[in-house]
């Protein structure tokens, strides 16, 4: 049980300098480093103490392990390693098991409640299993480390995206909102030419777009009857009013021509 003086001054406890580690603590030369590399918890620390001495979990010498465990957590406290309450809880449990074993056996009572030592052994075993598989999983080949995804460019593929749907209802409601806003600021007014006139205005402009000019009468189509003639005439007047077309008569009594401006 040689304590190895690792540092000239190990720590300061209650104002007193600590130069040596507790006597009952076996510390191999590399142990302090391990110690500082915080354990994953009291079970991990216990496992470390057991494994380091090649002990079998099933037959852990409780008294010895308890001593070492407590020495370690004292040291961790001394070194200011942030110690969770779980470590202290485990110390209490170990102390309890140790004290029980000093008492004469009382088979009746032991049959009723679970032997805390057996419970501790089972927990140590289970934790050891998990610790082992966690290490194995960590060693599995995994993405970003041993395995890499392939990336094949797809930007040259032509993919037609479906276009958004627009229900007529939505369009009309949007327009209703516009009309309401316009009504509120009444400096604007949406005049009420029938839609047929506006449609015809577009049609006439569209026609005039492709020709230089056309004869007035060509814009009328007999097949549409009287109502159609009226709509066309109103459309031409409206286009003229909005200065979108020009109605020209080259010489008196000659045919009127209509021209997009």
């Amino acid at each position, binding site marked *: 049980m040689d304590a190895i003086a690792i540092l000239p001054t190990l720590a300061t406890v209650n104002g007193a300098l600590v130069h040596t580690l507790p006597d009952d603590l076996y510390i191999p030369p590399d142990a302090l480093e391990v110690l500082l590399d915080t354990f994953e918890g009291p079970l991990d620390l216990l496992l470390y103490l057991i494994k380091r001495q090649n002990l079998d979990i099933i037959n852990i010498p409780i008294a010895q392990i308890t001593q070492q465990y407590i020495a370690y957590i004292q040291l961790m406290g001394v070194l200011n390693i942030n110690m969770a309450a779980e470590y202290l809880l485990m110390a209490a449990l170990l102390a309890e098991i140790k004290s029980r074993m000093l008492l004469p056996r009382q088979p009746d009572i032991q049959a009723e409640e679970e032997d805390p030592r057996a419970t501790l052994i089972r927990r140590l075993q289970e934790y050891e299993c998990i610790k082992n598989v966690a290490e194995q999983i960590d060693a599995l080949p995994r993405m970003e480390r041993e395995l890499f995804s392939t990336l*094949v460019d797809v930007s040259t*593929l032509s993919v037609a995206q*479906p*276009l958004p749907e*627009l229900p007529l209802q939505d369009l009309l*409601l*949007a327009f*209703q*909102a516009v009309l309401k806003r316009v009504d509120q600021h009444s400096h604007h007014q949406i005049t009420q030419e029938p839609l047929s006139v506006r449609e015809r205005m577009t049609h006439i*402009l569209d026609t005039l777009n492709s020709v230089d000019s056309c004869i007035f009468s060509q814009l009328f189509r007999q097949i549409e009857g009287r109502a159609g003639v009226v709509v066309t005439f109103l459309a031409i007047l409206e286009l003229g009013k909005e200065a979108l077309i020009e109605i020209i008569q080259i010489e008196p009594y000659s045919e009127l021509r209509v021209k997009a401006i």
Partner: protein
Amino acid sequence: MDIKHIVEAILFAAHRPMSVKQIQQVFPELEQPELTEIQTAIDAIIDDYRPHPIELKLIASGYRFQVKAELSPWVARLFEEKPPKYSRALMETLAIIAYRQPVTRGDIEDIRGVSVSSSIIQTLLEREWIKVIGQKPVPGRPSLYGTSKQFLDYFNLSTLTELPTLEEIHSLNESIADNPTPQASRENPQTTT
């Protein structure tokens, strides 16, 4: 390990096009092959993949594997997204063009009271719902927009006069008009008009 094998792996794993020089840099310093060796490997890989649906292509910044364009129709469904929704501004713009055509962008802005983004006009033109039917004879000669035959087809109308009148629009079912989510009205389109 053989150079071609490594070059092929690098080209598949790199998430960017790789020049011959860049490929060389990926090798550990003391094992870097000559550029010509890498080029030879690349040429061999290009040959290897001829029968495959992917190809190793040289583009400006280097070589990259890409899916052959002829496969487009077969893989297109991988990339189909749910179509986006049209914005309120777009719908308003389209409605104004329908009811007030021929109109300029300025006219639409006057009515809406806010500016109309070029992208909205662009979207409507691309969708072929509207078209330019002339220029207004004012300074700047702004385009005049009107609705198209495709617009009527899409909304299943034979003429614009089948659209509700302004009065009818005003009296569109209020409960639906007040509903802020257009989806709701989509789900029960029967309840109005």
